[in-house]
């Protein structure tokens, strides 16, 4: 059994990047991503990571530098949050269309305004359509493991897509947890050398980023969509291979007592653990309740989700983001879309909570469960499209 050490999650993540032996790190500081990048700078300065550390002058340049770097054949990393993601937005979309295997850790934080350095999912939900592979991790060990996973999947020649790892800012990045680092042999076994599909090489000149006229643009988009959809089996395979190497299991959709439960919570990120505590307490009192944890966000795991949620009568979807004046939180919209037309479609109640890192406790989730049951008792399918939980009037 490998040794587990108590360490801040950000530092552990940086150590995972060191173990992945990245070649280029290009990042701009933004709370709460800072500790990851600072530790990477230290590792490079101490000679423990042989990489070019590029302190770019903005996040837009960070992702642009990553595009140039990845296209030149280097294993490339960047990291940002909220406003940084918003600033690099156009390049994030382009990176996916160019099929560059960049890995980015997104320390989830509120998108302004007002300005907030604290955690929610409004940032990642603003790039749902960007074309990256997107996963949500729930704790420090999860984060560490997924760095190695991300490079393995991104650089797989059958995938060749950028990967975004979402970790809740502060709540996930700044806490000290017991983390088991991989050893060199495990990394070597799991993560091969990067052999790019396309590379800028004077001996074999290629053109990257040509423009597309209407007569070919749709075909280009179709090809990109198919690439993301087709990445799913390779993602699942990468998780299965990881389980063989380190013994921890990860799946696109993970169930916690969801089988046979009448009411099922759907959560992502650090809320997973909090809600599990509420589920345990409710089950002790005899409630028929379970939880489904959504780990793979893009490509959306339709099959696995329908299988996990199909048996439930009611689903409580927890959103940490909002689409103003829209049909509900982003996650709830997607769950509704995924289950639309299914036989015995469950009733979906959507709670928005946890903005800017506001604490949502197991008691709160219990209250949400009770509210949902109350609606069910009254035979109400939809009282509000979404419930903005815990807001003072």
């Amino acid at each position, binding site marked *: 059994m490998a040794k587990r050490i108590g360490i801040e999650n950000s530092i552990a993540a940086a150590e995972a990047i060191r173990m992945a032996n990245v*070649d*280029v790190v290009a990042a701009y500081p933004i709370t709460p991503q800072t500790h990851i990048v600072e530790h990477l700078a230290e590792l490079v300065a101490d000679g423990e990571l042989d990489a070019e550390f*590029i302190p*770019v002058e903005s996040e837009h340049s960070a992702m*642009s530098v990553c595009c*140039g770097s990845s296209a030149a054949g280097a294993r490339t990393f960047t990291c940002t949050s909220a406003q940084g993601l918003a600033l690099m937005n156009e390049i994030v979309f*382009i990176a996916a269309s160019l099929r560059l295997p960049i890995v980015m850790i997104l320390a989830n934080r509120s998108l302004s305004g007002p300005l907030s350095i604290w955690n929610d999912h409004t940032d990642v939900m603003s790039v749902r359509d960007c074309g990256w592979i997107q996963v949500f991790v729930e704790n420090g060990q999860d984060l560490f493991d997924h760095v190695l996973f991300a490079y393995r999947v991104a650089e797989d020649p059958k995938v060749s897509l950028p990967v975004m790892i979402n970790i809740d800012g502060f709540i996930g990045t700044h806490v000290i947890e017991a983390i088991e680092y991989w050893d060199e042999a495990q990394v070597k076994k799991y993560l091969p050398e990067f052999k790019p599909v396309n590379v800028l090489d004077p001996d074999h000149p290629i053109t990257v980023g*040509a423009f597309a006229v209407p007569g070919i643009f749709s075909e280009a988009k179709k090809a990109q969509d198919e690439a993301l959809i087709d990445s799913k089996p390779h993602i699942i395979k990468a998780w299965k291979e990881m389980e063989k190497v380190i013994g921890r299991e990860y799946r696109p959709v993970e169930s916690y007592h969801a089988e046979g439960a009448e009411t099922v919570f759907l959560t992502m990120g650090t809320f997973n653990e909090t809600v599990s505590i509420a589920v345990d307490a409710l089950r002790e009192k005899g409630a028929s309740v379970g939880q489904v944890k959504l780990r793979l966000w893009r490509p959306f795991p339709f099959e696995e989700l329908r299988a996990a949620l199909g048996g439930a009568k009611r689903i409580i979807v927890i959103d940490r983001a909002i689409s103003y004046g829209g049909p509900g939180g982003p996650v709830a919209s997607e769950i509704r879309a995924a289950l639309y037309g299914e036989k015995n479609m469950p009733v979906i109640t959507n709670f928005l909570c946890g903005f800017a890192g506001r604490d949502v406790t197991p008691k709160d989730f219990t209250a949400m469960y009770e509210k949902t049951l109350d609606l069910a008792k009254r035979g109400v399918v939809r009282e509000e499209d979404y419930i903005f939980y815990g807001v003072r009037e």
Partner: protein
Amino acid sequence: MESLNVYASRLVTKREYFAPGHRACQGCAEALAVRFVAKALGSNCVVASATGCMEIVSSPFPFTNWKVPWIHVAFENAAAVITGAEAATKALIRKGKIADKGTVFLGMGGDGGTSDIGLQALSGAFERRHDFIYICYDNEAYMNTGVQRSSATPFGASTTTSPAGRLKAGQVTWKKNMAEIAVAHEIPYVATACSSYPFDLMRKVEKAARIRGPKYIHILSVCPTGWGIASERAIWIGRQAVETRMFPLYEVENGKYRITYDVPEPRPVEEYLKPQTRFRHVTPELAKQIQDHVNAEWEKLKAKTNL
């Protein structure tokens, strides 16, 4: 006229790294400049281009005019993209993953993609001291989108967003001096060039390729379409720009200034302005303003060469 030795044209390589069949306008002196730069650099280079005329005319998917590795990402980040490729290559060589081929990294953009939207990325790339050349192909407006003004549009020029009308006489600000901004970053080499002077241009590109660190070359790229001249005059008007001292040809090596094409007897600026439709509204008063400014700038430049 630049003394063209009768045999000098034959000394230029016959290879075309910027292949014919590109979709630039007839008489595009910017495409000509790219052709010269491609000849000067040869095949051992990697090019990152900003969105703009040259990017569009040379990369209509699934076709390309580039015979060297070429990447286009977006409008304002050519400097960031190329320095990413440069840093990546540096790391890969150091880690023993690839051989050191001495590849030259070139970032290129138009005046809009350089002095306006691309200025931040360029400044950052200069400050971080990456080993790359940045070439600004300056046709003095956002030509690809229909001749809108940029900060490189000369004072008094009429563009679609600085039109000469009843109240306004074209561009109201003076051309942003990008070469001087580059010099202020204390990079090892800065130069100005023009496709009307091919040997001066190619020599400067070759020189830049031999120097380590960030290099900047600003090329005046005549645009018959946007400037309003007959296509056959593209080279001729570039010469007028230099001969009237409106666009001096010089280089700055580690802060030391040298005019590479001296103009001891300048022509009056009217000889440059009058043949162009974009200046047709220019009154004698406006022309005098421009002449005074050109004179002052030339004196400033001369003074720097004596330091």
